């Protein structure tokens, strides 16, 4: 199927080759008329430049085009920018409803933004599709180039065709008679000094260095692909956990997603702020100007592991793993998990105390303390007095029918319906008690629940994180960095010296940084009697080639 091209030098090239892989002779008629050859991929046969028949060819050619690749990058860039005009949905206050928030805050523009879905841009299907296309493009364009390039660089001969040398950007021809013989040795010395690898054949020289830098882009693209794959793996179940754990002081709770294996106890939450007199003097003005600045968010915790079998309904047996002071920037790690100090709430109500009291005489018949997270049903006192807790509304409000309801299970605004028993009222008196108000639904009571005080506690919010994609991302990032440095900090340079009849032809090529190559060439040929190659692109107007 593939017809091959046999060069005059005898080398058989793949179909589509422009410059013979071995001797560099120009194989394509139209290229012969050009003053400089296009050296970008050594004139090798790239699939995308050779075939364009089947659907697969077309897709291949589409994605291997740098024009398409760059277009995808630019579209992604522009889309990303649009996503920062207004905050993304994840950054608006959690209590707000996005459907009204954007219009409310940003007017008409905000409404448009919301309607077009920009408030969730980075997880939208089309944004992900863009990223995926970049990934596909990366794979195809790299494959399209790296194989032919590898072949061409491996097959290259030392004494390249005259036409190849003549069409290099740096080129000179010197008549041999004017050169002393040992100047060749000197040139070789100098080339070695500049760390060129030298190959000699038939009196011709090919000096080459840093060929490995040509693989830089392909390596960095591999790194990017690994990174993208790592990013995709997050959606595979079991790879990624993201849970928020609210934990009160004194509480011990099971850590979500650990299959009931790990428990955490919160001993104390600590919030510290910078205080003027306690800090270094350098901070004094800043603290005065900015008011309170937070210094530390910390939760003192103990991590427990469940030991042995637990019988259903019984408390698990826990074995302490470690005590830890969990701060921002200092997560607690265990197995594949890490706990992060994420947020906090100070002074949440935890207990409320009341005294059963005679309304008129203020005589007290007993005191009770209600654990707002775990209230008792009944509180019994001496001499036949007791209180039954008929209903409890931790976060109380009246609904539209004026019925008491609770908004949440968090005791933000506790309210109670008590039934108070006494020898005088063996059937009990009913009283509704909320903060700052008491209602007696069945008429005047003799007894009341006198408010005695509250106890508060701090609550800490910890992120429970497991992310098994991190090593893959790290490897991808590392490979990317290696590739990008390899391609950017080294350049592939070649200098050809060929004796042809009574002439010495010299040509030079580099994939980037011509200034550096020219300086080396000046040094190498200085005083050798061989004319230093000159930059032919300075004279040509058509100096910079383009690629489709």
């Amino acid at each position, binding site marked *: 199927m593939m017809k091959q091209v046999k060069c005059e030098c005898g080398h058989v090239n793949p179909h589509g080759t422009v410059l013979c892989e071995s001797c560099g002779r120009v194989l394509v008629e139209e290229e012969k008329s050009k003053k400089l050859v296009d050296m970008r991929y050594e004139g090798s046969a790239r699939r995308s430049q050779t075939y364009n028949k089947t659907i697969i060819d077309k897709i291949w050619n589409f994605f291997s085009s740098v024009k398409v690749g760059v277009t995808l990058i630019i579209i992604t860039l522009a889309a990303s920018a649009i996503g920062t005009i207004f905050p993304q949905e994840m950054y608006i206050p959690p209590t707000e409803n996005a459907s009204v928030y954007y219009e409310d*805050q940003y007017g008409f523009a905000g409404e448009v933004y919301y309607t077009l879905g920009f408030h969730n841009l980075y997880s939208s299907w089309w944004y992900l599709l863009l990223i995926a296309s970049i990934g596909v493009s990366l794979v195809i364009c790299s494959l399209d180039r790296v194989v032919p390039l590898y072949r061409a660089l491996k097959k290259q001969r030392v004494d390249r065709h005259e036409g190849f040398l003549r069409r290099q950007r740096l080129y000179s021809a010197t008549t041999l008679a004017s050169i002393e013989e040992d100047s060749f040795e000197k040139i070789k010395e100098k080339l070695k000094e500049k760390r060129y690898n030298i190959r000699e054949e038939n009196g011709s020289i090919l000096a080459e260095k840093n060929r490995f830098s040509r693989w830089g882009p392909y390596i960095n693209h591999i790194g990017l692909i690994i990174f993208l794959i790592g990013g995709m793996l997050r959606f595979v179940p079991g790879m990624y956990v993201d849970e928020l754990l609210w934990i009160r002081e004194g509480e011990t709770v099971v850590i979500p997603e650990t299959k009931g294996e790990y428990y955490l106890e919160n001993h104390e939450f600590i919030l510290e702020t910078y205080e003027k007199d306690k800090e270094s003097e*350098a901070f004094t003005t800043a603290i005065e100007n900015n008011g309170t600045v937070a210094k530390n968010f910390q939760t003192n915790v103990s991590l427990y592991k469940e030991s042995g079998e637990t019988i259903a309904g019984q408390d698990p047996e826990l074995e302490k793993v470690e005590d830890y002071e969990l701060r*921002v920037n200092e997560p607690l790690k265990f197995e594949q998990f890490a706990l992060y100090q994420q947020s906090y709430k100070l002074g949440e109500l935890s207990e409320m105390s009341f005294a059963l009291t005679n309304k008129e005489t203020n005589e007290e018949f007993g005191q009770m303390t209600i654990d707002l997270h775990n209230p008792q049903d009944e509180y019994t006192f001496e001499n036949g007095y007791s209180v039954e807790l008929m209903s409890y509304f931790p976060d109380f409000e009246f609904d539209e029918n004026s019925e008491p309801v609770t908004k949440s299970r968090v005791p933000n605004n506790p309210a109670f319906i008590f039934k108070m028993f006494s020898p005088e009222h063996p059937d009990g008196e009913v009283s509704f008690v909320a903060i700052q108000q008491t209602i007696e639904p069945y008429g005047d009571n003799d007894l009341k629940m006198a408010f005695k005080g509250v106890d508060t506690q701090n609550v800490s919010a910890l992120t429970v994180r497991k992310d098994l994609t991190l090593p893959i991302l790290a490897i991808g990032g590392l490979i990317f960095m290696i590739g990008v440095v390899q391609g950017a900090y080294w350049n592939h340079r070649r200098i050809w010296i060929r004796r042809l009849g009574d002439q010495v032809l010299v040509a030079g090529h580099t994939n980037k940084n011509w200034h550096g190559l020219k300086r080396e060439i000046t040094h190498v040929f200085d005083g050798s009697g061989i004319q230093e190659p000159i930059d032919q692109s300075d004279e040509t107007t058509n100096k910079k080639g383009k690629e489709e």
Partner: protein
Amino acid sequence: MVALSGNLLFIAFLLYLVGTAFFAGSIKDKKAREKDHGPNKWAKIGVAFAIAGFICQLGYFITRWVAAGHAPVSNLFEFTTFFGMCLVGAFIVIYFVYKLPALGLFTLPVALLLIGYAAMFPRDITPLVPSLQSNWLHIHVTTAALGQAILAISFVAGLIYLIKAVDHTKKTKEAIWLEVVLFGVVCTLGFIIISSVFGATGYKSEFHWIDNNNVEETLEYHLPALVGPHEGEHLTPDKFSPLVETPGIINAQKLNTVLWSLFTGTIIYLLFRLIARKRITLALQPLTKRVNLDLVDEVGYRSVLIGFPVFTLGALIFAMIWAQIAWSRFWGWDPKEVWALITWLFYAAYLHLRLSKGWHGKKSAWLGVIGFIIIMFNLIVVNLVIAGLHSYAGS
């Protein structure tokens, strides 16, 4: 220590200023122009001043670090001055490779503007909030700034290229856009001048207003209020009263600063036009006379090549490591993060266009200029307007 640190920064500023003058001299020097063999005496003195200034600024950085107990890159003032320092550092290194005096003549003023701009923000040494108390933060910020500074050299190179290569006697699109870019630079100068003038007199006026979330806020102006907040109440009636009121979604005080900068910039620009009787680009053109276009083109490309890996490492990789430790996720689509990604994508596009599409010369110079505009957008607009997690908001 704090005072010493401040003085060192001021001395560095002056040294850069003198250095700029010498670089200008090196280009005007007639004798040097004739033999054209390496940098002349003036350029050598210029680069000596740049190095001396750099050492002084390094002194500022170290002493401030000692005083604060953490690397001084944690607010807008510190970050921007550090950016300026990296820019000078990058210039010095590249100068010794390419020996281009014109690069000094254009880089040092950019560094001066950056430092001047930085000085308009609160200069107090601030204690670190918990999320910033991480060595990774300092590693991330310094590497990112260094990467941006190296990339910024391609802006300077691009500017030199365009000033020389574009025909500024005609009203082409290119010529006008370049003038607009320089006008933007002049407005930065305007911002610095007008802020310093009113800062020196201690001007202050205050407004009460109800913001979009129905929270009552006080706005403090340090420039006369041309525009006031939505239904704001002027608390200092003896001071200049606003001419116009802004809609509720706009921060009137920031808009006011922008207006003053534009206003002052325009005045400086008009004065310049009046005196020089030509566009800035045309006035600057003689300074680029001896410049070899191919060489400047290459300087621009190489600075992107060198800066891109550093930027990737600092602004993306180290940033992700820190974010993972501090916030439990390495990426959160915060505006500042997104703009780092945009910058990165942009320079990736630059490299591909240059390598594969042959975008050399003017096109590549323009890309260098645009890249720097993106970096500045991230530094200024994203920090001050699109506030997110990273923003040094309030400073």
